[in-house]
């Protein structure tokens, strides 16, 4: 654990981008910049940027607090305020952080929001979360009603329903906060840039079809999604990041190299796994190490698609700005019904030639967890691959039992080995 972690150029770039963003945020008041809090799934980054507003993503702050071992204290603070043990731990971590001074991941104070923009209602908790923040900050909330893909696809009326809200409710709210009229040409430019970065990201995801895989699509993947799912999608810096990432991936493919991990390069890849569900953040590196030590590479994951399933064909389309944003909001992974999610994972297993399927079921995230065990059974039946089911939490360190999880996973890897030997 003490060995120096290898840094690649893309990592340095991302760190710089994040640092600059938080610095801009910390100076927003003196520079007269307005701040919008919004969530990752279905985020309207291009629209926010078109109004020159600054986005803050509370769940990203929460996961960062988890990785920096601060979430335990924040959660306890929120519980002290009266929030139940069973509530989403991202929410409690965020509320606790707010109560303890709202210091962001780079150590700088976060500005309060001028607007709370809820652009995805598929997660019921998001609504309640902003309701709580509204109470704390006394600022307006604008809410986009996003219907569930109950039929497993986006219908024309759903798209129209969301696009109309964007025009009639969201844009006026953003105009009011920013004091600017929407510049549709600027919005189209941003959307076109997004699509270019999305192309490169898809290339990176699909590189995992190589053997050895040059990427870890889950643990490494959470870093790869950083720029595109947050404040940078639509900006030249985001495009530059994905160009660089793609270049690094090409280099590794050309040299038959595995992904870079905190424990070094993972070249000897014994098992290829597809993962469903978010990772645990409080023990992220220990969790990753369990897989690294067993020579396990994650070739595809659903969590890294929460902010967009680009590899299923979606791209932001500058020709239809409101419709494309509507499709983006409707297309969130957790907004797909269970059969559609099973289809996506089954396709991953087949296309990425996976040996197994792992579900990390999150105690406090019903958006992900509801129905997961049934999904796993169906996937085992359909793909013939062995599934593993473990349970942990996002950022509450009390719900990560390292010994139990290691025990389950070791059993699982040995089970894969036994199956392989029997075959």
């Amino acid at each position, binding site marked *: 654990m003490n060995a120096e972690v290898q840094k690649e150029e893309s990592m340095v770039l991302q760190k710089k981008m994040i640092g600059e963003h938080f610095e801009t945020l910390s100076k927003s008041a003196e520079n007269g910049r307005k701040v919008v809090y919004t969530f990752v799934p279905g985020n309207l980054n291009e629209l926010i940027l078109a109004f020159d507003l600054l986005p803050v993503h509370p769940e990203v702050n929460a996961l960062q607090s988890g990785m920096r071992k601060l979430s335990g204290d924040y959660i306890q603070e929120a519980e002290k305020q009266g929030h139940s043990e069973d509530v989403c731990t991202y929410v409690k971590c965020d509320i606790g952080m707010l109560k303890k001074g709202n210091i962001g991941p780079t150590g700088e104070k976060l500005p309060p929001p001028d607007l709370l923009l809820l652009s995805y209602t598929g997660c019921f908790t998001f609504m309640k979360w902003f309701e709580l923040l509204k109470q704390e900050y006394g600022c307006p909330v604008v809410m986009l009603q996003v219907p569930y893909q109950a039929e497993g696809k986006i219908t024309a009326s759903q798209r129209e329903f969301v696009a109309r809200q964007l025009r009639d409710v969201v844009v006026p709210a953003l105009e009011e906060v920013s004091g600017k009229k929407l510049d549709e040409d600027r919005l189209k430019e941003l959307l076109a840039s997004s699509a270019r970065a999305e192309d490169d990201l898809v290339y990176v995801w699909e590189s995992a079809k190589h053997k050895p895989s040059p990427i870890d699509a889950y643990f490494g993947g959470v870093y790869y999604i950083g720029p595109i799912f947050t404040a940078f999608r639509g900006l030249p810096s985001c495009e530059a990041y994905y160009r660089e990432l793609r270049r690094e991936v090409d280099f590794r493919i050309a040299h038959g190299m595995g992904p870079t991990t905190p424990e070094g390069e993972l070249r000897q890849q014994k098992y290829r796994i597809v993962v469903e569900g978010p990772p645990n953040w409080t023990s992220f590196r220990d969790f990753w190490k369990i897989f690294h030590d067993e020579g396990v590479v994650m070739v595809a994951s659903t969590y890294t698609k929460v902010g967009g399933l680009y590899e299923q064909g979606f791209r932001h389309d500058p020709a239809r700005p409101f419709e494309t944003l509507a499709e983006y909001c409707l297309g969130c992974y957790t907004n797909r019904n269970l059969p559609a999610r099973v289809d996506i994972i089954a396709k991953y297993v087949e296309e990425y030639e996976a040996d197994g399927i792992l579900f990390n079921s999150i105690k406090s995230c019903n958006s992900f967890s509801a129905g997961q065990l049934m999904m796993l059974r169906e996937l085992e039946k359909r793909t013939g691959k062995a599934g593993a089911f473990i349970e942990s939490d996002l950022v509450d360190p009390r*719900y990560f039992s390292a010994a139990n999880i290691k025990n389950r996973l070791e059993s699982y890897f040995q089970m894969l080995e036994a199956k392989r030997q029997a075959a």
Partner: protein
Amino acid sequence: MDCCYIGIDLGSTTTKAVFLDEHERIMGRGITNSRSNYALACQVAREEAEINARFGLLRKKLEASTSIGALAEPLMAVLACNYALAQHLEQLKALHAECQDVARAHALPEAELANVGLALDRIFAALAAQAELDFHPGSAAASDFFRDLATSQYLKQAAAVTRELPVSFDRLVGLFDAAIIRVENHSFAGLYREYLEFATARATADARFAPFAAEIAAAVKETAELRFNVLNIVGTGYGRLTLPFAREQIRSEILCHGLGAHYMFPHTRTVLDIGGQDTKAIQVDGNGIVTGFQMNDRCAAGCGRYLGYIADEMSIGVHELGPLALQSKKPVKINSTCTVFAGAELRELMSLGEKREDILAGLHRAIVLRAMSLLARSGGVASEFTFTGGVARNQAVTSSLEKLVFENYGRMTINISTDSIFTGAVGAALFAKRDPKGVMADLEVSQLAKNPDCGIAATCSA
């Protein structure tokens, strides 16, 4: 020289060892409490299994003898209980010495120290005398752990002696608590030849066996001198990573329980194992290879320790719980799955006048309901269904489980073996035997041999 493979299951409560021969037949089994010292527990269980294997070979020899043949059964019973008695007496002697040592270290006033010494002499004399009565063929005492047996009897004798001598009960208990840990940190199997001699002398003093004294002594000597060549050893269970085993010699308990259950009952498809601190629901294929599993992740309610806690709450022994629960005519519904809350609920129900057996029946049902949920999550129950682990010895659990399995999955074959506590160790031994590397020559033999706690030597010349 007999070649063998060893599986060791280091559970949270007990440590089990199994010796397999080259045809995958069980040669011997050993069990001990896990203590806080897994390395020692591993050694003791292994030694117990080795002795058990020697007794197995001796039995075969005696049964094959034309002169002793018919008497082999009672003779083995006498030998076994006297062997256990000899070891028990040796442990009592050590415990007595440790108690005296602890007393001296306390720097007690001279008069008190003299009284304590006198009290200890009387207590241990009484314990030795009691042991002579307790250890007889077929008695339960011989299979109890030394700690359990010694504790209950020491406390009884200590209470009696304080009525005769000016020594406080608390003082005596304090000495015992410190001394028993020291005694448990030793293995007593090293003297097995002496125990065998003792057992042989006692057996041949019996008029039934006296005529064959020379033949018995020769057979015992031969088995005592037999050397086991350990070809491979695999560890499993909670403490497996604390052992000085190479990575290749460690298997998860899920795989071991799956394979072990398949070995004991070849048609097994679903396995339920309830151990001290976890419950496992395992699905296996026709070869005993695990295809899916579920374990309790966040809470250990409904496991063996839960029963231990309830027994303490009711001031009865764990082994008394099942029989008492089976007497129930009207089980009470227990809501709490949390062990601690169940304890509170139990006291409340008692205060409301509910019968102990009805409350216990409800508690047993609550355990089984948790297991049923885990089974469902693992993919259900398919015939044949094998129930393993320490809790499978509890008849109230097994009858409740049988009822619920039939109700939910239809009638099917349910396998429960009294030896089910060894399932994980059997599976580990099978993995040791079936290791593709064959023998442990290139595994960490030297490392194991160097480690006194796990001293295994050998290469097979057979």
